[in-house]
């Protein structure tokens, strides 16, 4: 089909161009209207819409019946928020014309893409003359060298070429050209078939320093959301919009819906995103155009180089002029922070210059000592230099001594009150400042897990996202990587606005959808934050691991590989987050519980009204508890693993209900193992699971509670491992479960931290959560592990009291192996696991996850406990003071907070005006029968 159209186009072009001289063509092109900037919109965050006008196509046939009002439609596209309009100009197969292009452009202020079949360079000036701002070049129609030539010819005419590919080979040819826009068409123009996944598959082969457009195959918004997360900058949509009706209102509404799907989540939709977004500094600005580019791109800071003798250095008057311009353009107090770069200069002098220039920050790039910071009145970015990546394996594990030495240097500067940030850069003794070469990746990784740092050295739009995914740095810095590649003349390097825009966009998007947060203000032992390759946690890596029958090892290794893959796959997390938003009701509310706070204060003998207590309302999530976060994530993962059957264990029934729900939604077979004792205690949840189509299997072995349900689920898994994924419900079990479940639950704390920052401007003094296996606790607390100002408290179930039957694995247990990992558990001298007891089925578990064990052992998390009686009282307190009936599990945390306020605990007391974040992990409906029974017993 393509060859047919191209052949006919050649004939037509010969006729149209007959007798027109090159000079005449050039004149025509020059007479065209001023080109509209085609890239600036695509450089903004998110996926943008290129809306297409076409009357018919060989694959779809006629797309409009009757007359098509091109101007009307173009206006509707612009009204709906499209970033560009694509117009078919080919007549024979698509019914288009150059007049359609002119009409569309005249009706809007958007750039217009000429969707033509360019077979001859002489077509380009005519298209420009008609007003085209962009032009489509099909890689399939040209040998590589001609394609490269066409790209240059188009650019010279002011036409931005969009080079379209449909295969890996065509993509290689496209990437070899200077094209800044590359389109991947899911439709094979020869066979006219559509492979809807093609664009996503090929995306990672397009270097990040190009803008990338996905084309064809859009049926719904989900596809656009995936494209956004996968790293596309625009979607070209035709058919779906042409079928949206003919009246302007329908067309613009449909356009707006597609535009909306490509937008990045707002802070309200994804409060945790802020902590995943790096600080971006554009350094070495030398002239106004570069300054404008950095401002337009929305950089967080721009650097003015004040180090004499370096190629981007400025005289003080030049710097002053750039500062004046920046303030004028951005508005006083707005816009990026202005940073002066100094090296090896007297600190008092640096301070004086910085004040004269009116800078916001000073960057010290020499070998300054920590004392130098005392003499500077502004916040300081201090550069720590390391040798550039050697020729060998930059990825290799760095020497422990080198990492320790860097961390120690960092620590010394962290003690300075005006330290703004630390920056790792490569250095060479012979050159002041950075070398522009990459840091050894292994070293950067190791340091960044222990201290919060910015990365500098050799970053470009093409590599910045990869660097940020690899290294948990909190910021990035670039100078040479965003400059013009072939400078117009001698002199100082100048910034390329498109590269500046791309750098900022790629850096901001790098971790936007991923579950990782790079925020460790305090050096934290890596063993408290992430497991090692064998899944071990703790300062001495003494917790976690994989203690399972050999039959499960290959499934665990497969699961680990899949987990590692999705951990880096933005599309997975974007899909999950979207489900969270539209299905679960995320973000869940952060509720300030003043009446509960006052009641707790009164009971503690304090004067009410001082404590500020916020509840993270996971009870409002779909199915009534935090468990859905994990269940949905693992159900999506099950699909990735290609498995159709899911098993799960449940204690309180909340995880069972959540898994049954996720399986119903994603069409998976589901079997839930539940202890006979729990089935009795949690009858309503058993009915809910059955209503959702799940088979509930009763477990009568052992204590007939959660621990035995896990044993039974593992036995099922051993038997059916080839077809079945085991959705473990807590942050326990063999590696990678503790890490996987933590990643899926940390949304609780990530959201809460951002929500709290929004209303209080700071993090809590105390984050407190109930602990059984610990998924809710690790979900809430993870975000704060590296925040030294935040106390972490886990509340265990003391059952009938710590001297009687209880479920307090940390307070009353010792390290051992349960359910596949080494952690604290209740056991006797011979290693027999003891039965736990708690009125709350969700806490009635003799173990606790390895990461919480590590945090406890390292003293980072304190523990409290609450008895059955105290928990029941906690339910009543919250219910009567705030009208919220909590589940028995978080009621333990409420009770323990009361005891802490009253000073009745072994841990340090809480100040009167403390800011407290409490994880309200679930609602109490499931416990009403248990509570009624308890009240009945209490009466007798």
């Amino acid at each position, binding site marked *: 089909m393509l060859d047919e159209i191209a052949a006919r186009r050649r004939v037509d072009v010969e006729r149209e161009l007959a007798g027109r001289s090159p000079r005449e063509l050039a004149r025509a092109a020059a007479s065209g209207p001023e080109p509209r900037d085609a890239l600036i919109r695509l450089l903004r965050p998110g996926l943008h819409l290129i809306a297409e006008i076409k009357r018919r196509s060989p694959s779809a046939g006629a797309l409009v019946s009757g007359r098509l009002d091109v101007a009307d439609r173009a206006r509707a596209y612009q009204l709906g928020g499209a970033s560009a309009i694509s117009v078919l100009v080919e007549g024979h197969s698509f019914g288009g014309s150059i007049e359609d292009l002119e009409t569309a452009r005249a009706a809007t202020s958007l750039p217009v893409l000429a969707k033509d079949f360019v077979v001859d360079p002489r077509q380009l000036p005519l298209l420009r003359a008609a007003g085209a701002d962009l032009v489509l070049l099909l890689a399939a129609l040209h040998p590589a060298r001609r394609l490269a030539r066409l790209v240059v010819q188009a650019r010279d005419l002011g036409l931005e070429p969009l080079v379209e590919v449909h295969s890996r080979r065509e993509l290689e040819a496209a990437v070899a050209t200077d094209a800044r826009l590359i389109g991947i068409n899911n439709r094979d123009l020869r066979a006219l078939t559509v492979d809807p996944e093609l664009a996503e598959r090929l995306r990672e082969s397009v270097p990040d320093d190009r803008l990338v457009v996905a084309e064809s195959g859009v049926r719904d918004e989900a596809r656009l959301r995936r494209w956004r997360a996968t790293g596309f900058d625009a979607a070209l949509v035709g058919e779906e919009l042409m079928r949206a009706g003919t009246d302007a209102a329908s067309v613009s509404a449909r356009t707006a819906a597609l535009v909306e799907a490509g937008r990045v989540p707002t802070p309200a939709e994804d409060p945790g995103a802020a902590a995943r977004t790096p600080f971006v500094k554009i350094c070495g600005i030398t002239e106004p155009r570069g300054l404008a580019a950095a401002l337009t791109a929305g950089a967080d800071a721009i650097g003015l180089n004040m180090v004499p003798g370096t190629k981007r250095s400025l005289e003080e008057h030049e710097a002053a002029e750039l500062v004046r311009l920046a303030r004028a353009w951005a508005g006083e107090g707005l816009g990026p922070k202005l940073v002066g770069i100094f090296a090896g200069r007297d600190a008092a002098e640096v301070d004086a210059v910085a004040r004269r220039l009116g800078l916001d920050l000073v960057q010290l790039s020499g070998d300054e000592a920590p004392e130098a910071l005392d003499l500077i009145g502004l916040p300081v970015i201090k550069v720590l230099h390391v040798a550039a990546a050697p020729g060998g394996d930059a990825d290799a594990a760095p020497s422990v001594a080198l990492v320790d030495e860097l961390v120690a240097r960092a620590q010394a500067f962290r003690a300075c009150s005006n330290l703004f940030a630390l920056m790792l850069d490569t250095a060479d003794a012979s050159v002041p400042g950075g070398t522009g070469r990459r840091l050894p990746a292994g070293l950067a990784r190791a340091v960044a897990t222990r201290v919060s740092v910015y990365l500098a050295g050799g970053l470009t739009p093409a590599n910045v996202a990869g660097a940020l995914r690899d290294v948990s740095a909190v910021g990035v810095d670039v100078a040479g990587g965003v400059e013009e590649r072939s400078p117009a003349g001698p002199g100082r390097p100048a910034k390329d606005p498109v590269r500046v825009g791309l750098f900022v966009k790629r850096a901001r998007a790098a971790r936007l959808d991923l579950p990782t947060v790079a925020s460790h203000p305090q050096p934290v032992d890596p063993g408290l934050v992430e497991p090692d390759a*064998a899944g071990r946690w703790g300062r001495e890596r003494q917790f976690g*691991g*994989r*203690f*399972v*029958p*050999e*039959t*499960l*090892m*290959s*499934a665990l290794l497969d699961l680990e590989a899949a987990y590692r893959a999705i951990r880096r796959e933005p599309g997975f997390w974007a899909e999950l987050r979207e489900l969270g938003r539209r299905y679960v009701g995320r973000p869940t509310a952060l509720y300030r519980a003043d009446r509960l706070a006052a009641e707790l204060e009164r009971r503690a003998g304090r004067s009410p009204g001082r404590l500020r207590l916020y509840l993270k309302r996971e009870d409002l999530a779909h199915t009534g508890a935090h468990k859905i976060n994990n269940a949905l994530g693992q159900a999506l993962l099950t699909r990735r693993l290609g498995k159709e059957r899911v098993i799960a264990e449940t204690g309180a029934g909340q995880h069972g209900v959540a898994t049954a729900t996720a399986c119903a939604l994603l069409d998976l077979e589901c079997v839930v193992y539940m202890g006979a004792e729990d089935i009795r205690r949690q009858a309503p949840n058993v009915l809910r699971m059955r209503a959702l189509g799940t088979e509930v299997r009763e477990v009568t*072995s*052992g204590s007939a509670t959660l*621990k*035995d349900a*896990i*044993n039974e689920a*593992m*036995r099922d898994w*051993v*038997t*059916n*491992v*080839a077809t079945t994924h085991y959705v473990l419900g807590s942050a326990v079990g063999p590696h990678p479960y503790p890490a996987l479940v933590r990643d899926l639950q940390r949304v609780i704390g990530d959201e809460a931290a951002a929500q709290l920052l929004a209303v209080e401007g700071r993090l809590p003094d105390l984050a407190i959560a109930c602990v059984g296996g610990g998924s809710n606790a690790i979900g809430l607390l993870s975000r704060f592990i590296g925040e030294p100002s935040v106390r972490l408290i886990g509340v265990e179930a003391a059952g009938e009291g710590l001297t009687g039957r209880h479920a307090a694995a940390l307070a009353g247990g*010792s*390290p*051992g*192996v*349960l*359910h*596949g990992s*080494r952690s604290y*558990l209740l*056991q*006797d*001298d*011979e*290693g*027999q*696991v*003891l039965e736990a007891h708690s009125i709350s089925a969700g806490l009635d578990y003799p173990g606790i996850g390895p990461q919480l064990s590590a945090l406890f052992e390292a003293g980072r998390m304190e523990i409290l406990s609450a008895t059955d009686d105290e928990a029941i009282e906690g339910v009543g307190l919250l219910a009567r003071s705030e009208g919220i009936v909590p589940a028995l599990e978080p009621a333990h945390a409420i009770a323990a907070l009361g005891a802490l306020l009253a000073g009745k605990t072994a841990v340090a007391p809480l100040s009167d005006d403390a800011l407290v974040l409490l994880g309200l992990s679930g609602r109490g409906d499931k416990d009403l029968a248990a509570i009624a029974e308890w009240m009945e017993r209490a009466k007798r």
Partner: protein
Amino acid sequence: MTAAATPRAADGRRGAPDIADAPSIGGASAIRAAFRAAADDGRAAFIPYAVAGYPDASTAEAVALALVDAGADLLEIGLPYSDPLADGLTLQRASSVALDHGATLKRSLDLVGRVHAARPRIPLVAMGYVNQVLGGSDGTGVLRDLAEAGASGLILADLTPDEGAGVEENAAALGLSLTYLVTPTTPPERRTMIAERCSGFLYAVSLAGVTGARRSLAPGVGRFLTEVRAVSPAPVAVGFGVSTPEHGRRLAPYADGVIVASALVDALDPDGRDVDRMAQLARNLRASLGR
């Protein structure tokens, strides 16, 4: 080699107890000698299993001795555990009955000691779960007690070489062999790695699943055993689901040893006391392993 050459008494008991201090010559050597002896006899080694303390301490001892006397080449002694997640219903129930009737690790070790004293020629291999060794109050103490009681080796159902280095080292220092398991789900390169880390014998699990009697053998088990044996420097014993003399006959050509557990426990009847019936099954199984 002395073990292999020792003539066998008519009643199935070994001859003179000339190597009563088995651990001193190394548990692994004793185990390998037992496999060699069976092979020299033209058989796969018969490895039955008794649950310590099931249904009670004295019956368990009678069961163990009856198994030896029925012709066991090695004897596995199960250590009852609260959370036997690799076990099917039979062994779960036996474990829990034993614990309810007062079984403790110490008493299980006493049983090992008594059986060893009574039948010192038969290598005894304890089978349990990793927390019995790593958890509790004293990690290495258990291994020492086991060695002192006369055991030759140890199997931990939830320990793989990935986590096993420490236990291996401690066991080796005490002259105990450590046996790991391979299963049909173990990828080929892993099978080799596991086999090379076994000091006594390698335990080949016949199926993907838990312990327990089965009516039929897993399909492809012959090929699986052939592949495992090809890469294993240590003798390979097959277990899980092996229930009848017919199973034994079919497996014997493919393995150096055949392990039977749940079927023997089932044969003790629900009350766990029909030792004669179990011994009869054991003799039949033993007789089925000729090649």
